[in-house]
């Protein structure tokens, strides 16, 4: 493995964490959006609020990590992506601002109307943001971003594959979130909420699976290079993802509660790495390879050191945060 390949792997590790934890936070917003009127939706919203509040900002930092590693280790790829896909990227940025601000404001703002407006802003932008992020990823996979940058601002991503991947991002976030919330409801002893999110886990799993299947067909016609590798080198990961997804459905249908989170996470992780394996050795299929975009070696060394420090300091700190949060030592209400 070259230094550039290792840096690309680090990029994918960051993307994996963001897909898991950032994705679940977006999903929380989707369930908030669909929870119904103030009275009907009060309890699921309360549960979502409790489990998101202490962790969403830390989870958001994975996005910053991915951006920084991309522009430092592979500057031409970063530049090409941003100069081509600026429309969905700017819309995702807008969504990030509205979502973070809406979430922070809605618990402290004066008056029911203000809280509803802030809450609706949070919930709606929780759906739009991952959709546009997915569209960006889909556009990259389909070869919509030329290595030289400045590709077409619209036709690069308004295609079946990017839009399907956008939908898949929204659905898989909803799926992860619902599964995580099953555990949270169980811990809080709220049996009806547990059943509520079990039902939603199953629906979301089915929808995410449908998007993934449709995405495979679109991949076949729009991103042949990626498709061919996905069903060859990436096949074990595709099978793993399907196994995890179906396994989770089986556990839920039998009324089981274990192991839910590992299966849900496994399904998403396998997709992220399947995408990576299928693109390899390209960052932008099929115009820019990892080695062509790579920064000089000393810069890569910094990326490795930063990653090592992250592994030693950030991951245990995150584990501490999640542990405190899961043991209800952090109050989400304030």
């Amino acid at each position: 493995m070259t230094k550039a390949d290792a840096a690309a792997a680090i990029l994918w590790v960051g993307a994996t964490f963001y897909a898991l934890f950032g994705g679940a936070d977006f999903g929380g917003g989707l369930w908030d959006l669909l929870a119904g009127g103030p009275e009907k939706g009060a309890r699921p919203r309360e549960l979502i609020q409790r489990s998101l509040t202490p962790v969403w900002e830390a989870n958001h930092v994975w996005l910053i990590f991915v951006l920084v590693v991309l522009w430092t280790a592979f500057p031409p790829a970063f530049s090409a992506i941003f100069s081509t896909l600026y429309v969905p990227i700017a819309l995702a940025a807008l969504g990030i601002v509205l979502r973070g601000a809406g979430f922070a404001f809605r618990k402290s703002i004066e008056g029911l109307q203000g809280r509803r407006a802030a809450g609706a802003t949070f919930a709606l932008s929780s759906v739009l943001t991952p959709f546009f992020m997915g569209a960006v990823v889909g556009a990259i996979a389909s070869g919509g971003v030329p290595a030289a940058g400045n590709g077409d601002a619209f036709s690069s991503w308004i295609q079946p594959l990017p839009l399907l991947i956008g939908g898949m991002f929204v659905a898989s976030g909803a799926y992860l979130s619902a599964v995580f919330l099953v555990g949270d409801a169980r811990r809080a002893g709220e049996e009806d909420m547990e059943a509520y999110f079990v039902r939603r886990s199953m629906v979301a799993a089915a929808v995410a699976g449908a998007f993934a299947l449709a995405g495979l067909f679109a991949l076949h016609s729009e991103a042949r290079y990626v498709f061919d590798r996905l069903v060859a080198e990436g096949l074990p990961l595709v099978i793993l993802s399907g196994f995890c997804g179906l396994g989770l459905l089986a556990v839920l249908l039998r009324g089981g509660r274990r192991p839910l989170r590992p299966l849900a996470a496994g399904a998403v992780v396998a997709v992220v790495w399947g995408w990576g394996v299928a693109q390899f050795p390209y960052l932008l299929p099929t115009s820019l390879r990892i080695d062509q975009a790579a920064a000089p070696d000393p810069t890569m060394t910094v990326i490795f050191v930063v990653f090592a420090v992250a592994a030693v300091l950030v991951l245990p700190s995150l584990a501490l945060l999640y542990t405190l949060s899961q043991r209800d030592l952090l109050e989400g209400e304030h």
Partner: protein
Amino acid sequence: MPPLDPLPLAASASNLLAARELMAFTLAFHIVLSCLGVALPATILVANYLGLKRDDADAMELARRWSKAMAVTFAVGAVTGTVLSFEFGLLWPEFMDRFGSVFGVAFAIEGIFFFLEAIFLAIYIYGWKRLGGWAHFWSGVPMVITGIGGAFSVVAANAWMNQPQGFVLDAAGKVVDTDPLEVLFNPATGYEAPHMILAAYMVVGFLVASIYAVGMLRGRRDRLHRLGLLIPLAIGCIATPIQLFVGDTAAREIADHQPAKFAAIECIEETGDHQTEYLGGICTSDGVKWAIPIPDLDSYLVGFSADTEVTGLNDIPADERPPANTLLHLSFDAMVGIGTGLLALGAWFGFVWWKRRDIPPTPWFLRAVAVSGVASIVALWCGWIVTEVGRQPWIVQGYMRTSEAVTEADGIWFAFAGVLLLYAGLGTTAILVLRGMSKRWRAGEDEPEGAPYGPPAASEGAA
């Protein structure tokens, strides 16, 4: 390394102006929040420490309130900071393409600090009820360290843009080798980073104190308000004299290493010794109008002697001079003027405290503190105008022009208009939310209970 020939202009002048305005506006908005992220944790921990050590309920209450306010400002700061990292690619793709591998290392390190700050901030903010007193206090200490480390890394990246080093270019201008340590510890980091970190402590100190000064002027003279004024004010007043020393050093370094910026700041038209220092006024090509001139002082400030030669704009090629000299000059004067005023405020406070262990017993002192918060933010903005506009027309001093870096994308003015509206709403709502929190605290209420936006009765009924 010699500067490269300027590449042909890649984008229209209109895009350049729009991108610069958009970047400047979003940065000005974010920088106030980032000051809160850097320096508010230490301010909170001082109150928390006093509360624990002296069993002081008022100090504890202040720490608790400030940490709840920080939950809001940190969230807004996190998203507006994310916008800036998006803007690097959206507005300046050529800059990132050519130099991302060089100065990106500073941001990679910043990422770690930001990560740790977000994690421990969450533990601290949400750990009030269930973590034990001192364990809770210590969970907050990493925020202070990571805030300072994060500010250092980000400012190191900016310092590198002012005094770039630590990279090798090939004949085509492509970066073929880097030296990350040289990038991080470029000469400008040495003064820019401490200048910004101290600025953050000043902004937070005076801003928080000013809120309590307003409360005291409105007759709320309880111990909580007194303490709420004293703790942050002491922090601001300690940071100020150090800041003036660091700033003075920075100005001399800029005179040495960025003569074009310095000449523009000081409105120096002709190179020479015995340079006059102009306070205020308007820079024109026939000299400075309506200023207070102090003969020889500029030369003296640069080299401790009136015989010091200072470079004038006449020795800078016309296409390498910063635009808007009057803006730079007045921004610099406003920053130094406000800093000096805050130093005087600190001296007044320090003297009276030393004599009588009390706040100066006149409403004029409270009025001065009440304006010090906004004044310190104005000084902060002025300092960044000097740094950033003063570097123009370069994005990387001597290597890349801002006009070469800008995007070819359409609709930047449209985006700028949208962002203005968005941030106006964001800023207004944030202030309303913070004021609402303060009103509830005064009324003795806490956060609204129940579901995020369901009626409280419904959630109580269900739970």
